[in-house]
């Protein structure tokens, strides 16, 4: 019975757990419930992925209503993979939560934090698993609203303005997507993704469909923080509580990339997206701008969470670059980077959370002498940094490899070179941290700082080890990414 309803339960379990978490007044009880929920969610996503890898796509009818009138959940390799990423990151980050949240969020708001976290998780999972276009909008808003709450719970008052700015921009983005979906519905009369794909085929000349494409692209790009629509990201990641930053940096934008893949490859189809509309060129240019602008601005940041936020903008550029090629290798690179970046940034932000816990700040000044006072935390940051640069034996290298290969396949040597040049910019800002940590001595009060507590170190190092493990044994990640890419490239037709 459970197995049959697995797709529905994947979303329903965290959704129901959220109000329960709210009812438990003490933060620690809420955390226990949230942790349990996350583990169960993770188990379900693993089960779904293995089912899809062995048995092919899963379709599920919500409430038993047949599509295209009923809402259908549709799980193929792409979204099973993304489900796994979201659930896994959610669990690992949650494991680190009690210590960090206890110090950063007011005691009376902690259960609220976990409620919002679970809602966000449910929303993200819903976006990924649903097969209905309007449903995507609904879950998108669920996850976005809970994200605004998560961001606003930071203890710096700028968290409030950051959350507000994010709210305005995010709502505009979501509304654009709503307009796009509306225009699509107007042209085809259906909201089911598979059905839309079929019916949109002969409609490529229609101005309505083209307008829908444009609105959807802008809306998704806003959620994705694709340059130049990334302005909400640095402040939100910087001022949110560390656990929220870790969770969001590693999942929210990945899910937006997934939505982009779904819309461009499944719904609109490759021919329309890349041949009728100049998507390839537009994405290529914006991606390269994102990579360079993001990395360059990162170099000058003093707040290190902000630094890594801008770094994320650059990394998103890499993912979009892969998508702009629309080739097997390009999509493999993009999907692979979904996983790899989640692992990288998750570990980095958790380590920063540990730093904040011990020192109360995440500016460059807090890094002085960190190599001596908090060696394990710093080592985690170094390895994460090496992964951002793309040093071999880390996951970052594998993504870069496929991306450069994809560029070469398209004959774009300059782009290949630019991708590697972007890595060099990453060297600069990572090395800023290394120098401060290992070459400068801490001032008196910093010298008294001890290593982070195990409760924070262990989840961080789980992700760091994943960083290295999946950089050496890539059979799982690359295998799934390749299958997913193949599926996307051949889809867009009848189910």
């Amino acid at each position, binding site marked *: 019975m459970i197995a049959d309803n697995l797709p529905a339960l994947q979303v329903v379990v965290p959704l129901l757990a959220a109000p329960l978490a709210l009812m438990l007044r003490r933060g620690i009880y809420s955390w226990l419930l949230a942790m349990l929920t996350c583990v169960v969610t993770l188990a379900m996503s693993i089960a779904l992925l293995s089912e899809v890898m062995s048995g092919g796509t899963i379709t599920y009818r919500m409430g038993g209503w047949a599509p295209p009138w009923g809402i259908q959940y549709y799980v193929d390799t792409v979204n099973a993979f993304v489900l796994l990423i979201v659930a896994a990151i959610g669990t690992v980050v949650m494991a680190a939560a009690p210590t960090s949240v206890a110090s950063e969020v007011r005691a009376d708001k902690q259960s609220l934090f976990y409620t919002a976290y679970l809602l966000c998780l449910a929303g993200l999972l819903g976006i990924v698993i649903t097969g209905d276009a309007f449903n995507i909008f609904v879950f998108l808003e669920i996850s976005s609203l809970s994200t605004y709450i998560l961001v606003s719970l930071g203890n710096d008052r700028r968290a409030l303005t950051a959350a507000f700015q994010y709210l305005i921009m995010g709502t505009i983005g979501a509304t654009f997507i709503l307009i796009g979906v509306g225009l699509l519905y107007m042209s085809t009369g259906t909201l089911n993704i598979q059905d839309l794909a079929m019916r949109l085929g002969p409609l490529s000349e229609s101005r309505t469909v083209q307008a829908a494409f444009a609105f959807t692209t802008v809306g998704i790009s806003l959620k994705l923080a694709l340059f130049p629509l990334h302005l909400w990201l640095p402040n939100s990641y910087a001022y949110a509580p560390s656990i929220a930053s870790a969770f969001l940096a590693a999942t929210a934008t990945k899910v937006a990339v997934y939505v982009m893949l779904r819309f461009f490859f499944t719904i609109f189809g490759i021919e329309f997206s890349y041949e009728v509309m100049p998507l390839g060129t537009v994405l290529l240019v914006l991606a390269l701008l994102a990579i360079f602008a993001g990395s360059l601005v990162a170099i000058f940041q003093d707040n290190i969470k902000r630094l890594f936020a801008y770094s994320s903008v650059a990394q998103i550029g890499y993912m979009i670059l892969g998508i702009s090629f629309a080739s097997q290798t390009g999509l493999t690179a993009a999907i692979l980077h979904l996983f790899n970046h989640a692992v990288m940034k998750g570990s980095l932000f958790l380590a920063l959370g540990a730093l904040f816990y011990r020192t109360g700040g995440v500016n460059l000044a807090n890094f002085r002498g960190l190599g001596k006072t908090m060696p394990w935390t710093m080592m985690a940051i170094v390895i994460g940094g*090496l992964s951002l*640069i*793309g*040093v*071999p*034996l880390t996951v970052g290298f*594998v993504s*870069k*490899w496929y991306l*450069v*290969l994809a560029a*070469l*396949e398209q004959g774009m040597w300059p782009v*290949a*070179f630019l991708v*590697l*040049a972007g*890595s*060099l910019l990453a*060297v600069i800002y990572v*090395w800023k941290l290394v*120098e401060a940590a290992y*070459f400068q001595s801490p001032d008196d009060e910093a010298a008294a700082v001890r290593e982070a507590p195990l409760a924070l170190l262990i989840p961080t190092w789980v992700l760091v080890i994943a960083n290295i493990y999946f*950089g*050496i*044994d*890539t*059979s799982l990640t*690359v*295998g799934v990414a390749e299958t997913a890419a193949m599926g996307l490239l051949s889809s867009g037709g009848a189910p």
Partner: protein
Amino acid sequence: MPIEMLMPVIVVLPVIAALLIKLTGNNPNLRDTITIVTSVILFLLLIPLTNEVMAGGQPSLVLAEPLPGMTLKFTLEPLGMLFALVAGFLWIITSIYAIGYMRGHHEDNQTRFFMFFAVAIAVTQGVAFSGNLLTLFVFYEMLTLSTFPLVTHAGTEAARMAGRVYLGILLGTSVAFLLLALIVTWYLAGTLEFTAGGILAGTASPLVLGVLLMLFFFGVGKAALMPFHRWLPAAMVAPTPVSALLHAVAVVKAGVFSLLKISLYIFGPDLVRELPITTILTYIVAASILLASLVAMTKDNLKARLAYSTVSQLGYITLGALLGVTGILGGGMHIVMHAFGKITLFFGAGAILVAAHKTEVSQLDGLGRKMPITFAAFTLGTLSIIGLPPLGGMWSKWYLAQATLETGELLLLGTLLLSSLLNVAYLLPIPLRAFFGKPKDDDDSTGGLKEAPLFCLIGISITALVCVTLFFSPQFWYQLASMAVR
């Protein structure tokens, strides 16, 4: 145990030693014993592998498969064996020397130093054993990262700036050029395995292959090909044992070794000779050789002079890589000869620093009378670098010269000869002034010997004697190098 398993053991052994060194940090004698014992064991473990390779075997072991179709693989062939042996042997000597130096100079953070020293040797052996470009790249990058703490050991502002130059150039060239070249090679040839005769013949137009060759040669920043050579003089801020081993043996040799392997097993000597861009590249290398020699002449700081000398000497090996089979043979032999010669010179520089606290060439007048053993050894090293009999350096220059004749590159022959003359000009005055010059100021001691610490003397004497031995019995190294090119 199957013989190929020795290779990962050899790589892992110094890493375990590094951990033990960290744990015994409070007991210097125990810690330093671990260093020496490990270096000896490592060298002994290389012997059965040498026998296997001399008998024609090529022990091979796949470690992992990080990317589909691409493995991390060790394959030991004669050139790699040559490099592994040189690095392994010199680790023993340098460990002895370093212990004497670090104690004599009362250096801080010795535990950290010997830890990263051991890790650096481990990854150097990894470079020597690499069976394909990916493995080479992985260990090459690890070498850069593991030597960074050694270069910046002093922790001063100058050390930090030097570290930035070091890392900036080495990581920059390896990521922007070498990695790109690697991926392009994969794209063109479908494989990265080191194969006799090369894998790139016929895969693309000469223009594309030419650009690829340039990317490789400039991408291997450790070969210090101008204009990417600045990291070498910058790294002289490190303690002398670091300069000695890493910059006379491990790091720079890893660079030119990589170039030799790429030339021999990725492009193949014939393809290299056919490409039109090779001629241009050889002239760039020749310019690098001469310019570095000229700059060396202007440097008063002893270590800086030796650093530019190294840049110049590395050019010889890079040139060899471009001159076909004999050139690669000569280049391989020069790895050996230059390693022993240069390390002697650096040991000498370090000994002078510890015993007499002098760093500039102009301060060395008459010092030879106070430090006869040091300067005698220094003289032998000088002669070997210049390439005069009865020192081993003569043989490698011989084969390199022969290679220029075979390929009809008379200009390059001229470059080699001119450079040797310049070597005389910037190196020979040092021991001459030391023995025959009059001391500028009558400072501390009133005559009488004030030699370097014992361990330093042992180190420098051994390497100097080897330079002489190499003249009389170079056959072993010749055999290894020629097996590689056959």
